């Protein structure tokens, strides 16, 4: 018999997920209560309970409408988008072995925005998520072909290529809106380029929520394959992984997820960059543990970011992307400094 080996214990997954879920529910209730109209958390819970068919004391109709028609769809959309962006970032960072990979930095989000506004011009809003997905996929292909020209794919090259692609797509998005918008085109441009959850309704909850649950489930089933990429493509191949197929399948899923997120909220940055790095310290790098906790953390994070965005300058609103950038850019800087030197070139 082998003696038991001393292991640095990682916190077990189940309690992390339970704590995350409790935190998410509390966050939703509190965030819905925050804002003008002076709602209490108990009132919010009763309003939601009533709509779920529970036997609770009814809430005044105006308050009920604020909870059910305005704030809850917005908070739930924020949760789904935050989870989706955080998942996308985690998957991209593992597949590219690039700690800076994220749908926003590599241009996918801007590509999705351009796809979405292009289809809005035509006026078929039903196709919005599909067009955003196609935009994200094209941006992904553009970034990687640009980053690969004349050499191997290094983290630095990928981010530079992503910058070029996202600037181009952002310019395209602005152009399309200027060309066509009848109302406040600046506000509309800002909400596509920096992201905004102000227009959330139950349809956006459905789009973002279904995308996160379905794509998230498929990605989670690939967790073991993602683990195999820790030492690069050859090592993954030697562990029995079909490297090319796995990479393109997962990248396409990330584009799909990004497309759905951007279709409901525009291009919100830095959620995918920040959350996986924060969560990995808690869960360790095994994806079966990392991915679900990252998704929960992304949901909670974006709800609070959006709550700040709509309350700090009340009654005016900040695009939520400003809040996530204020938190995300310092993290980006820390990552850059930590990896200074040879590893980047």
């Amino acid at each position, binding site marked *: 018999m*082998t003696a038991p*080996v*001393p*292991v*640095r214990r990682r916190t077990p997954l189940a309690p992390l997920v339970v704590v995350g879920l409790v935190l998410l529910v509390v966050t939703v209730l509190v965030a819905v209560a925050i804002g003008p109209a002076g709602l209490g958390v108990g009132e919010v819970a009763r309003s939601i309970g009533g709509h779920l068919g529970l036997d609770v004391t009814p809430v005044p109709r105006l308050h009920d409408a604020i909870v059910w028609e305005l704030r809850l769809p917005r908070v739930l959309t924020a949760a789904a988008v935050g989870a989706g962006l955080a998942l996308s970032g985690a998957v991209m960072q*593992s597949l590219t*072995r690039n*700690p800076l990979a994220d749908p926003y930095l590599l241009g996918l989000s801007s590509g999705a925005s351009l796809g979405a506004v292009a289809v809005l011009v035509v006026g078929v809003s039903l196709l919005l998520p599909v067009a955003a997905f196609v935009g994200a996929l094209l941006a992904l292909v553009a970034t990687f072909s640009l980053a690969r020209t004349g050499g191997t794919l290094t983290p630095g090259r990928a981010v530079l290529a992503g910058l070029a692609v996202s600037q181009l797509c952002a310019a395209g998005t602005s152009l399309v809106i200027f060309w066509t918008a009848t109302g406040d085109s600046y506000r509309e441009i800002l909400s596509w380029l920096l992201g905004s959850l102000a227009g959330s309704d139950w349809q956006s909850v459905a789009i973002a929520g279904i995308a996160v649950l379905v794509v998230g489930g498929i990605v989670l*089933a690939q*967790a*073991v394959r993602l*683990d*195999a990429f*820790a*030492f*690069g493509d*050859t*090592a993954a*191949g*030697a*562990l*029995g*992984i*079909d490297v090319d197929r796995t990479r393109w399948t997962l990248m396409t899923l990330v584009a799909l997820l990004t497309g759905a997120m951007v279709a409901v909220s525009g291009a919100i940055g830095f959620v995918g960059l920040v959350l996986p790095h924060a969560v*990995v*310290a808690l869960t*360790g*790098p*095994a994806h*079966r543990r990392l991915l679900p906790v990252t998704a929960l953390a992304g949901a909670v994070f974006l709800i609070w970011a959006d709550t700040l965005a709509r309350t700090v300058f009340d009654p005016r609103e900040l695009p939520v992307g400003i809040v996530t950038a204020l938190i995300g850019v310092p993290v980006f800087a820390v990552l850059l400094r930590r*990896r200074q030197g040879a*590893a980047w070139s």
Partner: protein
Amino acid sequence: MELTIAGVGTRLGGRWVVDGVDATPPDGALTGLLGPNGAGKTTLLRLVAGLLVPESGAVLVDDSPVHELPRRTRARQIALVEQESSSTVPLTVREVVALGRIPFRSLWGSDEDEGAVDRALEAAQATALASRSWATLSGGERQRVHIARALAQQPSLLLLDEPTNHLDISAQLSLLAFVRGLQITTVAALHDLNLAAAFCEHVLVLSAGRLVAAGHPADVLRPDLLREVYGVEAEVLTHPRTGRPVIAFHETTTPPSQESS
């Protein structure tokens, strides 16, 4: 397990980097793969690992071509340790070794044999490192952990690409002694001819993609072969304690015109 390399060749950018190599490394022993930089050692190892499909010939493991084996089946038979393989992922040593169990895990991550990681750590004498962070290991410790990861795959064929690179001399000696002691069929690309002479039972010498010599180091590593393949002058001595060949290099004879000036 019987390994046969039968007329294997492949091109990169139009050039045959491995060209019609025939070899049968002995079972359960350490075979050294030698040759100057660019001779095709790494490419040949990838072909043997089944990661590249040969354009000519085939690598046969017990008579089946490796590139036709299902990926997971192949990964349960053949383990590869790359040259200078590193990661930015904050893994512990135990988690690195557990990667070797991926070919045995179902999609949802269960592994029938959790003890395999413990046994691999123990076999590689890396048990004491188990809870250390991968990033804090020395070069020699990293190689040892990579080999433990490879052993967790329970391979019948072990492929090592320059396993002694950047190790100090004591780490080089202990690593090769350990690998030889595993008694798994092993093919290791090596730069240091004296290490190959001391530890390998069989050596294969590649030059410009072709196999130019194969056999016991004492029969293969002769001055004329070293001159032809590496372009160096050497005397081959016999180690007074081990009886293995020892290669003593010397400068090319200086032309007399320069000596007289």
